């Protein structure tokens, strides 16, 4: 192993060409059965691509001399892949060997695929070299289960310790923990990474048991609870609020799901034990919080079930994000949709929209769906849908309405709502200056008055407005359902912009 090659702050060898010689000697295919680095990367990125989370957000950290990297709370996206999804992190599996047999997964033990494993140094070198070229914000490390959960998690921790220690990497790390790994290793991972996550995979214990026979709700929720208590304890210890920061806009909301949550009671306050290593680096424990992911469309749950679970996860475990992944059939299995079934992209899109409503708009799951109406409207986004069921609240007078109510107007996001509230303090609003302030009224104008006037003389009539809004939504819906993955685009249209003020 060439120790002097990659350290950003360490001494560089005098002859840079020597490095290249060393590199070639080390990575060209040599050992039998071990593919070259490029081939490994292809296999292990390909196996990791179904994981949705690729954000590098949630923590601000300045750079420091002798180290490589910093972190920005807003997250930085570096590219967009052919499916339109953002690339922010080097998203790879440590290995695609796996002793488990989750039915929905390509890497399951019963599949015959080419298997390989990165060495810790290979992962570190890829990370720092990609990082210096500004390809990525950091590393997203996940893994199949190699031998057993403890062994796998230990290898992952070893890799992260190397990256933080020898390679002096100070950028973003998201680590996925292995269900069933010992608590000490979970603690270690938390001290080395910025975000830690464990995939719930499916929203109910029954589905999980059926589709992931080696996993259980216990082996997932138990560590999730401990991680959450440990994060809370560390936040308190450094003088922060126990709960994660949420969007600024939530502070102006009189009511939101995070306030009504009772964290400690629900999760118990069992914390993780001391870490095996990593603690000595003096890093905070998972400062960017934890997240999880659920697969959509592999099992029979309703949208209502999914967003209730989502809300519960936010409230009980203070998760920073819940991600959804439209199921893409990869395996032939009687318990799963057949091969060739299109991934439910529009449904996934609706769930993300609902997730934003829970996190930024002060909505609760029960306001959006119910036992009687368990699934989202295909034609309308959840907010329009909600507004049309509550026409008695509209039109809203922008000059006087509360921030909470303005935020519930279809087409108005936290940024616009904030600008409206700010601007009206110093003068009366007109449609003209709303437009100049960048407030888009395409959907909103059916629901508002400004100075007592509607923008166009239209009736507040459910049938009429529904037809209009469905028209507005149609093109977008069609794109999402048929052209694949347009959700990122519209998320950016609707909400994403607020992240880059």
């Amino acid at each position, binding site marked *: 192993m060439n120790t002097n090659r990659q350290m950003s702050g360490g001494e560089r060898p005098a002859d840079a060409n020597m490095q290249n010689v060393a590199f070639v000697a080390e990575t060209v295919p040599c050992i039998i059965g071990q593919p070259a680095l490029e081939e490994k990367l292809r296999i292990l990125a390909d196996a990791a691509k179904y994981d949705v989370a690729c954000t590098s957000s949630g923590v601000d950290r300045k*750079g*420091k001399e002798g180290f490589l990297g910093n972190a920005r709370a807003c997250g930085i996206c570096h590219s967009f892949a052919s*499916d339109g999804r953002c690339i922010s992190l080097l998203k790879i599996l440590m290995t695609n060997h796996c002793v488990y047999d989750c039915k929905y997964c390509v890497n399951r033990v019963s599949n015959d695929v080419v298997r390989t494993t990165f060495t810790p140094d290979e992962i570190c070198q890829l990370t720092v070299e990609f990082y210096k*070229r500004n390809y990525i914000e950091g590393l997203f490390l996940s893994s199949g289960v190699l031998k057993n959960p403890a062994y796998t998690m230990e290898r992952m921790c070893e890799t992260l310790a190397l990256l933080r220690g020898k390679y002096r990497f100070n950028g973003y790390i998201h680590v996925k923990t292995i269900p069933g790994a010992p608590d000490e290793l979970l603690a270690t991972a938390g001290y080395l990474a910025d975000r830690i996550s464990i995939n719930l995979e499916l929203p109910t214990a029954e589905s999980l048991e059926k589709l992931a026979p080696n996993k259980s709700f216990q082996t997932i929720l138990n560590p999730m609870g401990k991680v959450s208590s440990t994060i809370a304890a560390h936040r308190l210890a450094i003088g922060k609020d126990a709960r994660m920061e949420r969007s600024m806009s939530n502070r102006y909301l009189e009511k939101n799901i995070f306030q009504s949550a009772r964290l400690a009671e629900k999760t118990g306050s069992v914390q993780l034990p001391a870490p095996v290593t990593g603690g000595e680096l003096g890093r905070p424990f998972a400062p960017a919080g934890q997240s999880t992911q659920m697969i959509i469309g592999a099992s029979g749950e309703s949208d209502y079930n999914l967003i209730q679970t989502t809300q519960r996860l936010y409230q009980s475990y203070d998760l920073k994000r819940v991600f959804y992944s439209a199921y893409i059939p990869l395996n032939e299995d009687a318990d799963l949709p057949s091969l060739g079934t299109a991934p439910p992209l529009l449904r996934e899109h609706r769930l993300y929209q609902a997730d934003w409503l829970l996190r930024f708009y002060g909505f609760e799951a029960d306001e959006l769906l119910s036992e009687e109406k368990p699934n989202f409207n295909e034609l309308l986004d959840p907010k329009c849908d909600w507004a049309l069921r509550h026409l008695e609240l509209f039109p809203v007078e922008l000059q006087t309405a509360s921030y909470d109510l303005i935020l519930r107007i279809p087409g108005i996001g936290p940024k616009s709502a904030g600008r409206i509230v700010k601007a009206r303090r*110093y*003068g009366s609003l007109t449609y003209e200056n709303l437009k100049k302030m960048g407030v888009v009224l395409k959907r909103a104008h059916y629901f508002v008055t400004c100075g007592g006037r509607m923008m166009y003389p239209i009736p507040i009539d459910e049938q009429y407005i529904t037809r209009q809004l469905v028209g507005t939504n149609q093109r977008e819906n069609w794109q999402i359902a048929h052209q694949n993955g347009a959700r*990122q685009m519209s998320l950016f249209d609707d909400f994403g912009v607020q992240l880059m*003020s």
Partner: protein
Amino acid sequence: MTIFTCKSDLTSMMTCIYDAWASRKGHGNIKLLREPVFQQELFDEYIHVEGDEEKAEKVLRSVRAKISPTAYIDVLYAAHSCEEDALDTIYRFLVLGFAYGAKVSSMLSYPPVMRLMELKRNVGNEAHFMHEFTRFTSIDGKVYVSHIEPKNDVLALTAEHFQDRMPSEYFLIIDDRRRSVAVHPRNEEFYIRYLTAEEAQSLSETEQITDEYTVLWRTFFDTIGIKERANPVCQRNLFPIWRRKHVTEFM
């Protein structure tokens, strides 16, 4: 109408504001423009203002003290805007700012305030794009070089970001449009200077450098997209073709 004109560096612009103000010709009778001025009007009077550190500092100091630190940042961002009306907008914003104090930043229904915020937003957004899409190539693992072509003058903002991100690397960021370069020596503050024609020429090839990691990155990039979700339209919307010019994975 009297038109005050100046170069487009910060010192000149702030001096221009100082002189225009001190001229006491009345805010309505003057206009501030950065050079080159393309269409001179026959009956207007043109006054060129030369940059003066002291005057510029006075203006910036009063913005911080008499308006607010926020307004100061907003003005700095707007000053880097490529829009023709940027300087004049800053002037109009300051007229309001010195009258109303800190609350000027919330007076969004006033056109100069709204416009200033818009300019600031554009500059901030473009700087953010640079944080995302700037790509470095490595010269023998010693120096990292990148080329950018921003519309607004965001070189300093960009270099500041990378200085924090990799304080112990030697790197250059070259603004091809303005032929300026931010030079960051290892563990030191970066500085900006202009490139001579020869320098620009010899640095222009650095983008073509290919090494193990450019190859590996392209492999990763091609692999990570899910083909069942392929969506070139969405990719193009989020990462427009014109922004890809200096981006390794599209070269």
